[in-house]
Each structure stands twice: as C-alpha cells, then as structure tokens.
C-alpha cells in the first residue's frame, strides 16, 4: 500500500510538472502572449446576432490575471492596463503615440540633467488628497528606494532625485543627460501614488490591498484569478469614461476568450492570434482591431559561436528569409517588414526611405560561399506558447534556411527555459525574441536590450556601433539624433547581430457596439473607447 501510494503521489507530482510542457498557459509578460491552440471555426454561416446591448459595465478579458495591485510591482500587460485606468502619469501618449500633457501641463529641460514639470492644480486622488509636487516626489522616491524593491524601478532609474520647487512645480534631475525622460514617465513606472494615504495605511503591503490612484477609475474589489472590479471616478479631472464599472477578467485559453467575446460575455479581449481573425470578424458581434507592434520579432544571434561569428553567414541567413510569405501566410497580411534595427512605429530613428530587409536566395547562397560555410549546424531557438506563431515561424525559418543550403535546426523550449538560456548566455545559435519599447526611440529598444550587460547582450559585435549608440542617445537635438541613428542602422544591417523578421500587428477583439483605435504601445485606456 505504501509503495503504491508513493507511486501515486510521485505520478501526480510528475503530471503537474509535465503539464507544464504541454498545457497552454501564459507567463506574465510585458507583451501579451497568445496561446493559439484550438481554432474555433469561422461562424460565417450563422445569421448575424444583434450587437451586444450596451450596459453600464465594460468587461476586458486578458490572457492572465493581474499579479500586483501596487502599480510599481508589475510590468505585465494586464497590470499595466490596470495601472493606466486607475493611476495618472505626468505625461501620457495620445492614440497617435505623441506625448501629451496629463497631470503635467508643460515640461522643459532647464539644463542638461534637469527637467522641470508644471502640474495641474485640480487633480485629486480618490481619497480626496491633492496630487501636488510632493506626491510626485514621494512617488519616485518610493520607487527608487532600494528597500521598497519596486519592479518598475529599472524604468525610471535614470532619475537621481526629485526637487519640489513649489506646490505645483517639480524638477526631476537625471544621472546623465536624458532627452527621453518625459517619454519614460508616460509608461509603467510613471504611476503617481498618494503620500498621505500611503503613510496612513501603513505602506506597500496594505496599499496593495486597497490601492488609491487619481485616474478615471477607482478600485473596488479584486478576486484572484477571477475578477478585478473598478468603478468610475466621477470627480476625475479629465475625460470621464462611458461606463460606470470596468471589470478585468482573466481567460487564459484563447478559444474560450474568443468565445466569450463573440458570445457577448465580455466587450474586449487581448492577445488574439492571427488564426482567429476570421472567427471574430465573421461573428457579427465583434471585430478585430490591430496596431503595429512597437517592436518586432527577431532572432538574437549569439555572435560568439561558430559559424555565426561571421557576419556574412548572418547576412546570408537574413537574405534567405522570405518575409513577405511570413507576413501573408502566418499573419494573414497583418504585419510589416522592418528595414533594420528600428520598428516602423518608432518616432525617432526610423527612416521611411530605408528599404525593407532583402529576400534573395541566390545572394544568400553566394554569401555562404564567400563566408566559407561548411555545413555547420545552426540552431534556431524559440520559446513555444509565448507569442503568436512562435513555433510556426521558427519552423518556417528553418525550412527557408535549408532551401539555400544552411544546415538549420529548430530548438523549441518552454519560455522560462529560454529566459534562463539568455541570462546564462547559453544560446546555441539564435534565439527568438519580441523586443519592444514604449519609448518609440532606438534608445528604448535596441540599445537598452543589446547594450553591454543587457538581457539580449550575447557578446559584442562591433565597437564602432557601441560608440555611436552611446553618443547618439545623449543628443537632445532631434535632427542630429536622427542622423546618428540613421548611421547606426547602416552598421546594424551590415553586421546583422539580430535577424529581424517581422513587425506584426498586435490584435484585439472588440464588440461591434464600440469604436476604439488599438495602440502600438498596447495600452487599453477605457476613456478612449466610445459607444457607437
């Protein structure tokens, strides 16, 4: 009996562990992962159902639950959407991704390392406490206090200190010249918190149970893995949202999430994989909204392993990829082909006149010959069930590379194993990633992720690039900054340290009763959603 029991227990433990290899689940990520498993067939044959009746509650279904109600303790997509409906930031991006005043009415650099922000005088937290210069100082002091262990600290750690000039003016001093500071404050890490309430309630732990912000919605209730309930802040200083209640629900399974939308149970869903576009658009109840991803899907090359240390091999790989076919077939036309190191959505750096990355199998073969390629094995590594099409993309790539005579091999793994490989620089060949940044500037994505010591740094490939990027990031003048980045992109395309493949559209499904424009930074601000 005892042996049998032990066996049962071990089996059940192993089942739980093995389940991690097969069951579709979603790790918390800054980017919405999608678990494209079971496709629901298009429902075109069904008669159109009348649009969802508009109620006083708006329901958003994410793929994951929230992980933290403390706005400085998470960067996962569901949490960031919560942050941007409950809290305010100094600066915010409009639907066009241009920076707009929010709590700060204006800002300017008063010297190389000091940005001055003037605040609105009519902003109050949900507890009635005024949002003033003191609250701004308190927010960043708290976030950067090592004892607070804030996970968003790395988004604002360029700040050295905050000075209160008067009740409604603050100076934010940076460690080095930083033209991007206002942009940094417009994303996670920028959520402002109430100092008086914070102290009254007794700090982070208690605050996370009953969070108070100054945004368009107030916190009501949170039931783990089930729902987050928010209520409209009728005293909100800005545009008031159309719904009295806003509910977040986690629905991890893609098919169930899509069904909940077409069924009218929820109003907006995130992380729709491309194979569900028709099912949603043909439902008669909801439609797809897409926005180009503020980043791209790229394979980060380990430039220290043979034969990938040879740039001609890397060029050959890039030239062998039929990106147009990938956009058309895997993403149903919803995506674009990048031209180098910067996504098309970048406001600075990206140059429209640069040609998209080239596909030319004959040239690829020639480059291989030139590099003296000797049929060495090249590993194409990717996590599965992490981002839309991660597995099919990798498989497609392997066959395209084989077509020009590259001995490519797919190596697929669980997401957290991928993270470990990147951390330990144990990437055998090249690893799929979905680098992105909400700064819309090369400093936000390519440089932050590939600079020495960064997560995607798998070895330096060109000291000139490092020098040029370091110099350019401190330039405040827009034209000079653009020129620097343009030169850097030429180097990048020549060296190909990342094999950039596609800038896909991120997809959402929304009920037909509403109008909404999806944002490249993937935020869902309910004040931007309107009833038709």
């Amino acid at each position, binding site marked *: 009996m005892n042996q049998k029991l032990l066996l049962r227990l071990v089996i059940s*433990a192993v089942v*739980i562990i093995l*389940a991690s290899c097969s069951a579709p689940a979603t790790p918390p990520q800054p980017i919405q992962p999608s678990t494209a498993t079971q496709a629901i067939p298009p429902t075109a044959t069904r008669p159109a159902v009348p649009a969802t009746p508009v109620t006083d509650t708006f329901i958003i279904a994410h793929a994951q639950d929230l992980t933290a109600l403390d706005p400085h303790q998470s960067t996962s997509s569901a949490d960031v959407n919560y942050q941007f409906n409950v809290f305010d930031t100094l600066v915010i991006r409009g639907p066009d991704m241009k920076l707009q005043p929010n709590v700060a009415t204006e800002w300017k650099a008063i010297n190389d390392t000091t940005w001055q922000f003037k605040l609105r005088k009519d902003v109050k937290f949900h507890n009635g406490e005024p949002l003033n210069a003191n609250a701004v100082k308190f927010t960043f002091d708290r976030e950067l206090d090592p004892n607070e262990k804030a996970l968003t600290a790395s988004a604002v750690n360029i700040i050295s200190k905050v000075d209160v000039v008067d009740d409604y003016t603050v100076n934010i001093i940076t460690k080095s010249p930083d033209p991007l500071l206002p942009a940094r404050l417009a994303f996670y890490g920028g959520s402002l918190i109430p100092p008086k309430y914070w102290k009254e309630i007794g700090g982070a732990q208690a605050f996370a149970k009953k969070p108070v912000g100054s945004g368009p919605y107030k916190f009501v209730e949170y039931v783990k893995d*089930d729902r987050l309930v928010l209520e409209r802040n009728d005293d909100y200083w800005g545009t008031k949202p159309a719904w009295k209640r806003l509910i977040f629900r986690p629905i991890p399974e893609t098919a*169930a999430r899509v069904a909940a939308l077409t069924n009218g149970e929820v109003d907006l869903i995130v992380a729709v994989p491309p194979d569900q576009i028709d099912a949603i658009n043909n439902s008669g109840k909801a439609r797809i909204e897409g926005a180009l991803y503020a980043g791209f899907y790229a394979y980060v090359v380990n430039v220290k392993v043979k034969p990938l240390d040879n740039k001609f091999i890397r060029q050959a790989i890039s030239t062998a990829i039929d990106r147009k076919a990938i956009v058309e077939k895997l993403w149903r036309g919803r995506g674009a082909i990048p031209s180098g190191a910067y996504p098309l959505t970048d406001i600075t750096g990206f140059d429209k006149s640069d040609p998209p990355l080239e596909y030319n199998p004959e040239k690829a073969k020639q480059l291989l010959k030139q590099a003296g390629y000797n049929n060495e094995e090249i590993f194409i590594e990717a996590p599965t069930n992490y981002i839309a099409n991660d597995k099919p993309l990798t498989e497609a790539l392997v066959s395209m590379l084989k077509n020009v005579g590259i001995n490519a091999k797919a190596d697929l793994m669980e997401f957290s194993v991928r993270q*470990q490989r990147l951390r330990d620089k144990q990437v055998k060949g090249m690893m799929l990633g979905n680098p992105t940044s909400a700064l819309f500037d090369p400093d936000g994505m390519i440089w932050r992720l590939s600079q020495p010591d*960064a997560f995607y740094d798998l070895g330096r490939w060109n000291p000139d690039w490092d020098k040029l990027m370091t110099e350019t990031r401190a330039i405040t003048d827009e034209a000079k900054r653009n020129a620097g980045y343009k030169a850097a992109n030429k180097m990048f395309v020549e060296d190909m340290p990342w094999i950039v493949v596609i800038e896909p559209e991120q997809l959402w499904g929304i009920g037909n009763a509403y109008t909404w424009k999806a944002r490249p930074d993937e935020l869902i601000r309910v004040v931007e959603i309107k009833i038709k």
Partner: protein
Amino acid sequence: MGEGGVTKPMARFILLRLIRTFVTVWGVITAVFFILRLSGDPVSLLLPPFATRAEQEALRVQLGLDQSIFVQYLFFIVNALRGDLGDSLYRREPALGLVLERLPATLELALISFALAVVVAIPLGIVASLRPRSLQDHVASIITLIGQAAPTFWIGIMLILVFSVTLNWLPTSGRGDIRQLIMPSVTLGAYAMASIARLTRMSMLEVLRNDYIRVARAKGLKEQAVILQHAVKNAAIPVITVMGLQFGILLSGAVVTETIFAWPGIGRLAIQSIYNRDYPVVQATVVVTALIFVLINLVVDLLYTVLDPRIRLSK
C-alpha cells in the same frame, strides 16, 4: 466486526499511516523541489526585459536564489517544519495562503464532477452488465469509450462551442453562478465517469458468474433483489478503489479544465506557478495536493473494512 476490538488496531493503523504520510510528502516535495529548479529562471520573468544583469543579480540575492540549491533546500525544509512554506515570488504573500484560498473552488469543482460521474457511471455500468453484447451494452460502451478517449481540453472546447457560442445557453467561463459550474464539471467528470462505468460493468459481470448468484436466483429471489442486494454490493470493492484513484486523477485533471474555463482553483494556480517558476507556490500546491491524496486513500481503506469485514487493517 466486534465494536470493542476495532478501536485499538484502528488507532495504530491511523498512526502508522500518519508517519507514512509524513515520509511520503517529504519524498514528493524533495523531488519537486529539485526538479523545479533544473530549468527556468523566475528572476528574468519577474523583471522587465530591459533590466540589466546587475539588477537581475540584485533581485536574485533578495529572493535568496543566489544560495546553492542545497542551502535553499535546507532553509525550505526547516521553514516547512515550522509550517512556513515561503512567500510567492510574484505576489509576495504566503504561498500556502494562496493555495488554501483557491482550494474551495477546486474542491467544489472536483466534488460536483465526481458526484456527476458516479451518478451516471454506476447505473450505466450495471445496465450494461445485465445483458452483455446487447444494444444497451453497446450504447454504454460507446459512451464510455468517448469519455475515456476524448482529451479533456477537447471536450471542454467542444462544450464551449456548442453551448456557449452556438446555442448561447451557458457562460463560457468564470465562477460564481451555478450555470458556470455545468460545463467544467461535465468536462472534468467525463473521464472518471467512463472509467467507473467500465469497471462497474466488468466487476458486475464477474460477480454475476458466481455460484451464490445462481443460488439466489434458484431460491426464487426477484431479479431486482439479486442484482441490488447480492451482486452490486460484492461488485463494489474494486469500484471503490478506482473511485478513490479517480478522485485523485480529477484533481490533476483540474489543471486543464480550470485553465479552459478560467476557474480560479489550485490547478490553474499550479500551472501558472510552474510557468513562472514561482517555486514556493508550486511546492505549497504539491504539499496540499499530496495531503488530499493521502486522505482519500485513508478513506478508501477504511471503507473496505466496512464493505468487506474479511479485509483487515493490520498491514
């Protein structure tokens, strides 16, 4: 079974069981502890992608993950003995609390599924056994075949397609309303139902061949009495063993079902925590699940003695 003689061996039996339980849970948790840490990295999952290696190292130190695995294990065991299973790396609150919070949802789902499975399976198995190879037997065997062969996630998604998307009768997911309980419990119970029904049929067929059944019939007892009083009771022992096992399988099946139907139970918590490498939460889930398993086994063993006094508790 004399009333006076039962207590002492029973007490000894339970005590022995408790000691074994302790050893078993320790073995399982040790295996899980080391297997979990073989691959994956919670720190790079926690921090934003642009966090530097230095920032990652700092968090690693803060979470105690910089220590050698054996030191971590030692700390874990010492704390576990004091009833402290650690804090979730993500939620920064006690892992055991997170599991216990979700336990009612899983138990609710498992119990309802189980009840549903048993209520359907036993009559189905009996009916099938009464006329082997008849139409009713074939129909029953087709039903059980589907229940055993169809993967849980497939059943779940098909139910959503039919009852939520097409017919719009039931909500797709969530917990709270009784209507939200229907599809998950059918999905989860399908496999157990099929297994129990098949075993009931087999066990009944075996019992019905016995001489005492023939004697009972020869005595002129009504067929109904023969089946219900003599056959079913004797056929029940293997069925109860399997039911105990099936309940355990239900708990692991909850992983898939809870994910499909967004049911806030420990299965979903477990899978999410494995993905996130939230070690303390996975460990707490395993401890709690293991204890439930042990408890079920204990109940099954005690039930044996009630059903068949010939079975002794000693070994």
